[in-house]
Structure formats: structure tokens, C-alpha cells
């Protein structure tokens, strides 16, 4: 009992303490290295995810708007392709006038009157920005778009492909849009 007490009260010698401290320091150093590496991976991943999210949002927006369009045309004029959509003016105020609540419309009414339609185009510029351009506004939809490719294999299908590049890593997102095509 007395030996146990004396051993318990003894504590660590200077050499033992230094050994333990060294071990703890080495472990902390290793962990710090791992944490640094992990945070770098996270940072790169976050940056890539943010880019991909922007490109994904742009792709979803383009696909959604193409679905709502009554006419879809692709211009292959250099240097970049342009997607032009003819669609119903989505402004709620305008739509309320187009089909008034009392159900009475003018006798010359047509479902595709030019006054009710707007043209919207999507194009990429030299600085890798994707723009949505309509008669009243130009809106930057996404940045860092390294490639925008569109194809219309038939009357009812639109293929959209967008890429974003970070260094040598190029991520490409693509989708097939089934067009709700009723021609005026």
C-alpha cells in the first residue's frame, strides 16, 4: 500500500514528461498536416461545387425556358452559338390582359399574337459568362462557362451541354429537353 502510494505520488520524471510531450507534439503535428490537407480538399471541392451549382442552375433555367417556348432556334454564327426562344410573355400583368377574367377577348384574338410573345436568347461571351438576353434586360446567368453547345436533332428535342473548367479539371453537364412544340 505504501509502495503504491509512493509510486502514485511520484508523478513523471522530466525525461518521461518530455517523451510524452514529444509524442503529443508529433501527433498534433500529424493531425495538423492531415487537417490542412483535408481543408484544402474541402476548399477545392467547395469551389468546384459552387461552379457546378451555377452551371447546373443555368442548365435547369435554359431547359425550363426551352420547354415553355413555342419556337426554338439555334444560331451557329461564330464565335459562339446562340439559343433563341420565342415564348409567351411570362409577366403576370401581361398574362392577365391576354386572357381577361371576364372571358371576353377581342375578335381578332389568336393564341400566338406577336404582342403576347417575347424573344429570349442565351449566349456565352469571350469572358466565359452565360447571358440571358431579352428585349428589356440582359442577365448574367452563370460564370466560368468554358463551353456551351446546343443541338436540335429533331423538331421536338433539344440537347444542351455546358462545361466549366478549373485548371485541367473540366466538368460537363448535359441534358435532353423535350420541347412542348405547338407552332403558331
Amino acid at each position, binding site marked *: 500500500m505504501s509502495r503504491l502510494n509512493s509510486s502514485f505520488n511520484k508523478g513523471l520524471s522530466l525525461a518521461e514528461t518530455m517523451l510524452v510531450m514529444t509524442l*503529443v507534439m508529433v501527433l498534433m503535428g500529424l493531425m495538423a498536416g492531415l487537417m490542412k490537407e483535408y481543408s484544402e480538399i474541402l476548399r477545392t471541392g467547395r469551389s468546384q461545387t459552387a461552379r457546378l451549382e451555377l452551371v447546373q442552375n443555368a442548365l435547369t433555367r435554359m431547359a425550363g425556358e426551352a*420547354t415553355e417556348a*413555342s419556337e426554338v432556334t439555334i444560331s451557329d454564327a461564330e464565335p459562339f452559338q446562340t439559343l433563341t426562344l420565342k415564348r409567351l410573355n411570362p409577366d403576370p400583368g401581361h398574362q392577365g390582359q391576354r*386572357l381577361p377574367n371576364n*372571358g371576353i377577348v377581342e375578335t381578332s*384574338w389568336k*393564341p400566338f399574337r406577336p404582342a403576347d410573345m417575347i424573344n429570349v436568347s442565351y449566349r456565352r461571351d469571350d469572358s466565359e459568362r452565360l447571358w440571358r438576353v431579352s428585349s428589356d434586360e440582359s442577365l448574367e446567368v452563370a460564370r466560368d462557362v468554358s463551353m456551351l453547345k446546343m443541338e436540335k436533332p429533331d423538331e421536338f428535342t433539344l440537347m444542351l451541354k455546358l462545361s466549366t473548367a478549373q485548371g485541367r479539371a473540366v466538368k460537363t453537364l448535359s441534358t435532353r429537353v423535350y420541347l*412542348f412544340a*405547338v407552332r403558331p
Partner: protein
Amino acid sequence: MLAFGLLVMVLLLVMGLGFLGKQADTYRASAQTAAASQALEVAMAGLEDARVKLMKDFKFPPPGEVDQPQYCYTEILRDPGGQAVGSYTVTIDSRWKGPPSSILKIEVWGYWGDPDNPPISSRRVTAEWEEAEFLRGTESLATPVPNPEVGRLMHFQDHGGL
């Protein structure tokens, strides 16, 4: 030394919980995106249901009172195994049924999730159904020009959801 060790452990635990919390937010956001897409598909199923009913049943929508131009119905959407996956509510507005407009306005709310519980997500789409048998402006001619687009959906719009 023990206290120091415990402090390091607590620090690591807090950092780990922080990382996990961020991951949970990411997973929640992707789950919401997926649910919104599912609600859109349910709404599209409702639109297709209305289209087929309009095409196949010449008494659809059933004629109501003069002051009741809207016809509304709700159906449960089931997967191939018979499991209810959502429901859609279709409203067909006949206010513009007669000439010169000759269209039916269709509004569909798609609800994703068990119909017995509040929906996980919802989505609203609208479209117009072309009713004009002849091209507008040619009805009064001796030989009116048939409208090739009669009985088709046009002006589809996705209004988003909740």
C-alpha cells in the same frame, strides 16, 4: 496532461460535429431539389391525364352552370406497385371556350408525398388546350381552313412551387 488530452478530444469532437452539420445542410438542399423535381413530374402526370381525358371523352369537362366555368378534380398518382406517391389537382377553366379564343386553360398542382400526409413538395404548371376546329379568321369563309393544331396543348408554363 489528462485535461489537455480531454481538451484536444473535445476540440476534435466540436470540429467533427461542425463538418457533419455542414454535410447535413448539403444533403437537405439536394433532397429538396429532388422533391421539387418529383412534384414537377407529378404535375406533368396530371397535365397528361387532363390531355388524355380531353382527347378521349367529348363530354369532358362536364358542362356546369353558366356561372361555374371551372371544373376541378383531384386524383392520386400510384407507382406500378400500387403505392401512392403523390396526387394532382387539375382545374379546367372554360371561360375562353367559345370563339374567338376557343381555348381551355388548364392548371395543375402536383403534390409529391403520401397523399394522407402533408405533401413534401408541390409544383404548379399551366397550359392551354386548343379547341378551335378551324383556323381563326377563316370560320366565316365558304370553306374554312381546318386547324392542324386542334386538340393539342400549347403555352406550357412551369410556375414553380413550394
